[in-house]
């Protein structure tokens, strides 16, 4: 639990010694000019993002801001109208096979093959990403222990709770040890213990050189876990950078509410204060 505080403070001594700045880690995910319209409505407008290797990147925005649309286009699940996505040197939309080898995906609100058991599901994902039998099986066991899924792996996924489905999906995204993990709402409906377990797993993954992009509504969690943040509102990126750059002197939640349109004064709901008894 010392890591999140260690990271921001580590930057202060760096700033004091401008003579020898360590080179920033390379960029592994570049999004440029990404746009998508559904009919008349512009869901995502000209989004640019850069994510550096080894970072945990938080993608936050209010409901309907275009988070899922953007992440779907980044992972090759939704074709953008314009713009490019480059992951580990490969263009997701020009060279999808190469790019998809380096991406692990946890999409929001998509089904799984839910008649498979958890173990079958993870094995399936592993082999689809080119793992051999032994590797797929041993990684299934490792991930089950790390995410607290052991004991549930022999049940069909359709019998899982929403939180369990999230956990098995996270395991499925991790099983081929991708360079970049893209997680859409990974902690929604997941209990605090499992969240802590998963966060620990993601920290280890990032410390070893992996990169994580995750979207969330939970500002406390993002503030605790992520070292870089982008705020998207109405399909546009309003702020992007390291956690400190984005939040400034405020908490992330205050900054977010300010960016997302501020607190609207609640008016016209007088009936809500006159109780019927």
């Amino acid at each position, binding site marked *: 639990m010392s890591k999140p505080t260690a990271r921001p403070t580590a930057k202060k001594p760096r700033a004091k010694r401008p003579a020898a700045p360590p080179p920033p880690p390379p960029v592994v995910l570049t999004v440029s000019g990404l746009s998508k319209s559904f009919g008349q409505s512009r869901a995502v407008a000209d989004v640019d993002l850069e994510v550096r290797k080894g970072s945990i990147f938080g993608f936050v925005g209010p409901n309907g801001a275009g988070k899922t649309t953007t992440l779907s286009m980044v992972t090759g699940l939704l*074709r953008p109208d314009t713009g490019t996505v480059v992951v580990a040197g490969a263009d997701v939309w020009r060279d999808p096979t190469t790019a998809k080898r380096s991406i692990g995906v946890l999409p929001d609100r998509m089904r799984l093959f839910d008649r*498979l058991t958890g173990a*079958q599901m993870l094995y*399936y994902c592993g*082999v689809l*990403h080119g793992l051999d*039998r032994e590797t797929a099986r041993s990684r299934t066991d490792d991930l089950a222990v790390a995410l607290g899924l052991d004991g549930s792996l022999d049940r069909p996924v359709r019998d899982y709770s929403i939180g369990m489905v999230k956990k098995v999906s996270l395991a*499925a995204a991790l099983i081929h040890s991708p360079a970049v993990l893209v997680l859409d709402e990974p902690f929604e409906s997941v209990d605090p213990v499992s969240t802590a377990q998963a966060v620990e797993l993601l920290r280890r993954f990032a410390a070893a050189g992996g990169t994580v992009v995750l979207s969330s509504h939970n500002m406390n969690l993002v503030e605790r876990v992520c070292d870089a943040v982008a705020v998207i509102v109405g399909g546009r990126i309003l702020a992007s950078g390291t956690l400190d750059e984005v939040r400034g002197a405020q908490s992330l939640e205050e900054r977010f509410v300010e960016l997302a349109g501020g607190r609207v004064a609640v008016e016209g709901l007088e009936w809500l204060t006159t109780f019927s008894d």
Partner: protein
Amino acid sequence: MVDHVLRLKLALLASAFRPGVALARTIGVLLLAGGVGTGVIWLSTQVDVSLETHRAALVIVATAVSIGIAVAPLSAGLGSALEPRRFAAFPIAPRELALALGIAAAIGLPAVLAALLGISLERAWAGEPSAVAAVAAAVLGAISIVIVSQYLVVVGDQLSVSTAARRTVTAIARTVIVVALASAVVTVAVVVVDSSDSATQQLVATAGVLANTPMGMLWAAPGSELAPMVARLVAGLVMVAVLALGWGVIVARLLESPQRTRADIARSSLGWFDLVPATPSGVIAARSLLYWTRDPRYRFVLLGLPLAPVIMMLAFAVAGAPLPPLWLLPLPVLALFLGWFSHNDVAYDHSAVWLHVAAPFRGSADRWGRAVPPLILGVPIILALSPLLALWSGVDDVLPALIGTSIGLLLTGLGVSSVSSAIGAYPAARPGAGPFDQPPSLEARAGWSQALSLLAIIAFMAPTLLLVWWGLSDAQWFTVAGIAGIATGVGMLVLGIAAGGRAFRRRAPELLDLMLRT
């Protein structure tokens, strides 16, 4: 010691009759065994050993039935509670254990059947000069069946290192039993129906071969000349002695050697996934098979497919069409619909197809995997039923055409489906829906997709169908039609999967988008 093991054996037998799910199974097994036993005894009263054909048939039937009985314990798939190694922890001398297990094996259904088989051999030869030889052969034969089945149980237990392996052993044993019983029935049928010289020669030749194998020599002994008869009986005696001594040695070895570690004790079985290669097409085939067997939406086809041809035949019969040649229709129709059914397979995945979209494998792997269930369902049905239906149709030499056309329709259908499920997908009933549930919205494209894929299959197969039509007036076209059908099928399947694979990869995001919108 011996009486302990016997009491254990009796308790095991009694447990099979306890009320519960197992009881139904027990009753089924008893009915089958009763049928076999009655059949064997009845045959012994009918057989006339003065006829060469009957003697030959007796050898074949007895050999087939004895193989079936010996394999039977393996087919239960339970392993044996009396497998020698289970007694390793007890202080029992190996010799004593071997004896006890051997005697225990003599109590039970296989031993009863073996005894019935022996008795029927004696009955068949009763009153003949070689009746004494028959008694000796029957006793040795029955004993050897019981010992061999003990060996097989031990071997089967050694092979069953994983759940998948155990299932495979059981499946092989059941297949052997079915084949053995079927060949016995066929032999009897041939003797009853066909008295031609060629049939007799076939039977005698087959029996002659069997008579010189360890499996058939005892059953052939009473019907042989004096010298070979003595030779066979002595060989049988030696065989039983060797088997019995070997049993003692094996039990001793098993008690000393450690159990083979079972790889899957800690790990659960992955079902179909353990049986397919660990490649994208392999696991997609396994997943597809699992859905075909578990998902009610697929079960609709499994129920509907056999019904459709039956209904069709009934309709024709009611309309007064000439019935016999119409027997040529059900199989091609079944093949056509089985191939065509997959034309919207991707939609059945609903949004779970994202797993395929997000993974870096070739589109053709996806197509091959989805083609596997209809193939392993359809091809055996076609091969097994076409001889029968060709026979009923009364059309001469039509068999190659029937097989070729049916396989061609199935494979062409799967090829066309590979393409259409990538480019012509339309909303289908959602996962979890029942077999008769309608999709949330049926668009016009659903109709187009269904009609065009069906038309495309028939169009590609039109040359073959034309050849079959010519064949009805000149039978030599039937062979050409058969070859043409299979060639068309294989070609269209390979082409369809290549084209469908490319289309699937190219259109994957749009397919996912379609699924998400419905």
